């Protein structure tokens, strides 16, 4: 019985992430509010903590953020099958859309209509990502360490450093910060 319910869960994950993948415009971070709503708020598959942890690992691991998050969340909910189906569900909409365009099935994308739709949807995605920033950070905005390291990493990103270098810098900076705090002169 347990095996069966796990398979059923995995297919529910597929459907959930298919819908999420359909609306992921403007980069993987815009799907954070969508995933959080689906898997934390509605279905309560993950706790807030677990979700934040999965996100933290999804970013530095090579691969598109959106797919990585789907894979890690899928694994927590329904094991390896859950991970595979969540990732497949997340990729399938973009695969089908691009294939449709390449096949010439969709005259919609040949027109400026798509550009206009995206101009509005992209603006909404900016709001979604801003909300993701607030949602992920809301527990830690008062920690001097987070603020300090976050601003330093942002400065590195803006001056053109590779995202992974900025992340590494922030992690090492955190270690040094903790060490300095535990060794007061």
């Amino acid at each position, binding site marked *: 019985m347990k095996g069966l319910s796990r398979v059923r869960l995995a297919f529910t994950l597929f459907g959930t992430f298919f819908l999420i993948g359909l609306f992921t415009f403007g980069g993987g971070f815009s799907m954070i509010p969508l995933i959080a709503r689906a898997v934390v708020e509605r279905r309560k598959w993950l706790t807030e903590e677990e979700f934040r942890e999965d*996100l933290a690992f999804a*970013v530095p691991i090579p691969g*598109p953020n959106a797919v990585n998050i789907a894979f890690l969340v899928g694994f927590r909910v329904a094991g390896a099958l859950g991970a595979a189906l969540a990732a497949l569900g997340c990729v399938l909409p973009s*695969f089908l859309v691009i294939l449709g365009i390449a096949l010439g099935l969709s005259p919609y994308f040949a027109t400026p209509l798509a550009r206009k739709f*995206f101009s509005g949807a*992209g603006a909404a995605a900016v709001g979604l990502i*801003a*909300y993701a920033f607030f949602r992920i950070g809301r527990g830690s905005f008062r920690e001097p360490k987070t603020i300090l390291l976050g601003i330093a990493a942002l400065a590195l990103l803006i001056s053109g450093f590779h995202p992974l270098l900025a992340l590494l810098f922030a992690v090492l900076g955190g270690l040094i910060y903790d060490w300095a705090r535990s060794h007061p002169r």
Partner: protein
Amino acid sequence: MTGLDHILAELFGAFVRIGFGAFGGGMPAIQLLSHEVVEVHRWLSPAEMAEVVALAEMTPGPIAVNAATFTGYRVAGIAGAALATFSVLLPAIFFLSVFLVLRRFSRSDRWARKLASALQPGILALIAAAVWSLGKAVIHGWIFGLFAAASFFSLLLSKEKVHPALLILLFGLLGLAIS
């Protein structure tokens, strides 16, 4: 090897390499894509590549995945599209699996929780940078700024009762209506 087998093998190799290097998305991914797809293999012309990037921005999904599907189809039809898309994700699947196996078989997952919280400030910086760079690209004029602000505050004030996908759809349609 027949011609098609050879092309499929090349697609596989190129997109696995792209998948290895393309994380954080955005510029690093685009540079790597143009290197492999335009310069090394000449599967697409620079102009076509620019079109794919523009297309990827207007369609759902990660840019590396979009480019893989499009290039794969161009070079070797639907089989090529499926293979290139799978190949670009293969490194991700490999590294994610290694991480999950490590977490599963280590005596405690405390290290994972600690590392995750150590990554937090950097992740927040990346998200902030994404707000900035996408905002710069799509917010032309106050009305689009208003769309972004309205999306943010609907989620905040409704405590996520408003569906984020609905906001994408609504402001996408408004974008059609006003321009």
